[in-house]
């Protein structure tokens, strides 16, 4: 019998939600690491009992936790994230040079092939790799040291590297995204990085089509088509069919194309989900109606999914890492809100129900499909 395990990171702890393949009855376990900010938890695709979690605090800094038994027990592992070599500067909010300072881990991405290998995207933006299950971390410094690095600037939430996508067909290729520097790709395992932002237009920048500086909120890929990427930018939903070499806008009929989360159906690579948010000034759904939008055409044509979601007086946000899908035959879709709800759909978004309603603000949602 299949099972689903949902890993939820919140403002004040982590929660593990489990159900059988029907996804109707849920067991809620938590809070784990109560009181800590849990930015992200994710399991290894090759060993689902191996989980990694980013635990952070304004008082006590960064800790990384690892579980080898599916979240029943946890061990604190290495938390020493040291930038390699000269730290250099990026732009501060006022345009002045500002030295890189490690603040926290935003995203953990376990290897597709080795449970002991995991990548960490951090603020201030940099990429780290551990090859010993999180005990030690080494920076892939060529990203931070990219010639455009001094031009990178934090978004309102900090200069975080929040998206890491590993190409299942090419172990040397990886995509990352940074707010507010943009998207980058390596084709040699992280030795060299290329900005992949052609086609992005950001009127909030002095040069709206500059090579870097775009506030990319999230990027998603279907593993069967690793060259096709979908992006939720600050404004605009974008698509690339050539591994990020160029992007086209696919916002189409969305009522607003601002948002944070984006994901792709587990079995239909042209089916994409976003949660439109009113604007960069008002981070809540339009008209108080929480609506997921689904495109079955790879963008441009979007339909609202509302059954089971609040359609009045709803003013939550859905953050960039707070949406995920399972890979059961009928694809499940999940997202968490800043109001503490985690919603699940076991029919690809047609209908929704809350798994839990009153958690702390949800930072991240990751789903494991267990067999």
């Amino acid at each position, binding site marked *: 019998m299949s099972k689903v395990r949902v890993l939820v990171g919140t*403002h*004040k702890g982590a929660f593990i939600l489990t159900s059988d393949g029907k996804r109707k009855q849920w067991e809620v376990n938590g809070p784990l*690491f*109560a*009181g*800590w900010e849990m930015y992200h938890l994710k399991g290894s695709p090759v060993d689902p009992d191996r989980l990694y979690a980013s635990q952070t*605090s*304004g*008082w*006590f*800094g*960064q*800790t990384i936790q690892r579980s080898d038994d599916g979240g029943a027990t946890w061990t*604190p592992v290495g*938390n*020493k994230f*040291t930038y390699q070599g000269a730290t250099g500067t990026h732009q501060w909010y006022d345009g002045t040079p500002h030295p890189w300072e490690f603040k926290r881990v935003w995203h953990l991405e376990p290897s597709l092939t080795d449970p002991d290998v995991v990548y960490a995207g951090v603020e201030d933006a940099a990429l780290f790799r551990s090859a010993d299950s999180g005990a030690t971390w080494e920076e892939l410094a060529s990203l931070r040291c990219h010639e455009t690095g001094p031009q990178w600037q934090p978004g309102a939430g900090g200069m975080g590297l929040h998206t890491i996508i590993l190409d299942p067909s090419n172990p040397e290729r990886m995509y990352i995204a940074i707010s507010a520097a943009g998207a980058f790709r390596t084709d040699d395992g992280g030795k060299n990085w290329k900005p992949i932002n052609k086609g992005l237009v950001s009127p909030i920048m002095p040069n709206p089509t500059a090579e870097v500086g775009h506030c990319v909120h999230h990027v998603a890929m279907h593993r069967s088509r690793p060259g096709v990427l979908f992006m939720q930018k600050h404004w605009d939903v974008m698509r690339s069919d050539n591994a990020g070499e160029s992007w086209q806008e696919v916002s189409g009929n969305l009522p607003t194309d601002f948002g944070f989360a984006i994901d792709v159906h587990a079995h239909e690579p042209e089916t994409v989900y976003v949660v439109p948010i009113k604007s960069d000034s008002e981070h809540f759904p339009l008209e108080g109606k929480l609506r997921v939008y689904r495109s079955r055409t790879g963008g441009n044509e979007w339909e609202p999914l509302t059954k089971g979601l609040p359609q009045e007086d709803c003013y939550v946000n859905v953050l960039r890492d707070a949406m995920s899908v399972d890979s059961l035959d009928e694809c499940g879709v999940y997202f968490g809100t800043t109001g503490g709800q985690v919603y699940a759909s076991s029919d690809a978004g047609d209908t929704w129900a809350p798994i839990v309603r009153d958690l*702390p*603000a949800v930072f991240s949602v990751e789903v494991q499909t267990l067999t």
Partner: protein
Amino acid sequence: MSGQPGSPRTVRVILPYHLRTLARVGAEVTLEVADPVTVRTVLDALEARYPMLCGTIRDHGTHQRRPFLRFFACEQDLSHDSPDAPLPETVAAGTEPLIILGAIAGGVA
């Protein structure tokens, strides 16, 4: 009375709640600390016993105190003293604890 330089003293340390849960200890831990007993030598001993606390009280590299943590002892705030300044003899003797605590900070949630 001070011990001989290098001789171990038994020092009591009170940790803030979140570091107790991280290290899986009670409110107070006792440590053998080589004389002289200073914030630095106490933290060296604490981190050697509980490696998961490395980086949570002071920076890994610079050993600077994290900004929102404070060191109190004998009703004094020692946070801004040199980490190499001898702690009060009552702390070195284990009569009084060194208190590590999170600074009061309001928040949005």
